[in-house]
Every structure is written in C-alpha cells, then in structure tokens.
C-alpha cells in the first residue's frame, strides 16, 4: 500500500485551491540499474478528484511527471468544510485515495 498523499485545500472567495503531494517513484522505464538491466516503468497514469463525493477532476499522466508528484488545481464553488478526495491509479493497477477538508 503506497504512502499517503499530502493534500491541502484552501478556500478563497468562491473557489478552493487544492495542492497535493503524492508519494510515487514515477519510474520512466528508460533507466538502467547497476547491472545494466532496464528498471521497469512504474508511474501514475490516472488522477481523479472529488468534491463531497462528486467527480470534479480527471487527468492522465505519463512517466515524464516528476517523482513524488505535485499537483495544484482550483475547484469552483468549494467552501470551508467541504471534503476533497484525490485518487491515483498507476500502470501496475495500484491505487491510493486520500481525503482532506477544505479550510
């Protein structure tokens, strides 16, 4: 089970800025180990976010997204007390979902 994400969601006016840090290797599949063997690609392919259980964001990522990815996006109409959840799925089929409350 992957390490937890860090999610911060701050309301300002009529929207909330969500900042996420995800713990993931984001291995490109281009690198070789000390023995010369290719290190297999291992990266987040899909990211989804929900506001109070309703889908608000979906994204597809390739292996060029940096290790321990950072994501920032703005949800319209979100206010303090609302629940934001962020999920990712990687190319191995592993997944992780974390939640935060908008402050």
């Amino acid at each position, binding site marked *: 089970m992957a390490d937890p994400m860090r999610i911060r969601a701050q309301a300002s006016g009529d929207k909330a800025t969500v900042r996420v840090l995800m713990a993931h290797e984001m291995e490109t599949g281009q690198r070789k180990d000390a023995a010369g063997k290719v290190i297999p690609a291992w990266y987040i392919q899909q990211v989804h976010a929900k506001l109070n259980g309703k889908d608000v964001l979906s994204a597809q*990522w390739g292996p060029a997204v940096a290790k321990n990815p950072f994501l920032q996006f703005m949800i319209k109409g979100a206010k303090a007390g609302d629940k934001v959840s962020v999920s990712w799925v990687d190319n191995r089929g592993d997944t992780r979902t974390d939640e935060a409350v908008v402050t």
Partner: protein
Amino acid sequence: MHTRRQALSASAKLALLLLGAGVLPAVAQAQASGFNQTAFDAKSLAEVMKALGGAAPAASSDVTVSAPDIAENGAVVPVGASTALAGVKRLLVLVEKNPAALSAIFEVGEMVDANFSTRVKMGQSSDVYAVAMMSDGRVLYAKKEVKVTLGGCGG
C-alpha cells in the same frame, strides 16, 4: 448469450475504431481505454494531436504556460498550463525534446478552473508547451524555452 462482458468488449472495439478515426469525444475515449497509451508514446506535438484527434495547433496569447527560465535540475521542473478562455475541454503539458512529448492531460470539467500546475522531468533544455483543446475543435498553444542545467559536482 449477450453477457455484460461481451457488450463491454464490443463497445471497446467500436471505441478503438472510432479512436483511430479521431471521431470519439474525449470522455468516451477515457472510458474506453482509461489511459491513452498512443498519445503518451507520441514523439512530437503533431503526433500527440493525431492520437488525441485534435486539429493542427495554433499559437495563442490566450493560453499561458508558466515555467522557470532555468531549472537547476531536470528531474523536477515546475510547469503550469492555464487559459481564461471559455469552452476549454482539455489542457495538455508537453516537453518537446523528451523521449515522448506528452507529459499530462487535464480534463477541464465544469467544476475546475482551466489552471493546473505540476512538475515534470526534462531530459535536456527544451520548449515546454501548454496546449488547450477547445470544444469548438480549435487547438491553441503557448510555449516557453526552459534551460536545464546540471549543477554542483555533477549530480
């Protein structure tokens, strides 16, 4: 017996055909494949557009790409893609000289701003693109050159 599995398989095949023809709308594409491998394997902006069924991109001052002039290390380069235009369906981030040009696709649903920031890996100094795919079929982009350096004692 027309099982759910058979029905799903049939619709997946149809989706693939339509995908190739560039006819399928974005949402259904996502449902069909979940992840557009072809787009993420494409080597150039033109190839990416073909894989996504988009028109030839045109430069536009209404799209903004934000990135540093210089990155101390290519492993982590902050990039933002945004536009204030109405009717954006998707925002893309591309790094021209990476082995595969496309870094990320953001679906601009009605609940989010067309404004995303993330960080990408860059293999070398290159142009970085923010591309907006509009619902009227236009594809608009902005680009910026980011120099990548190798700092310190070499790592």
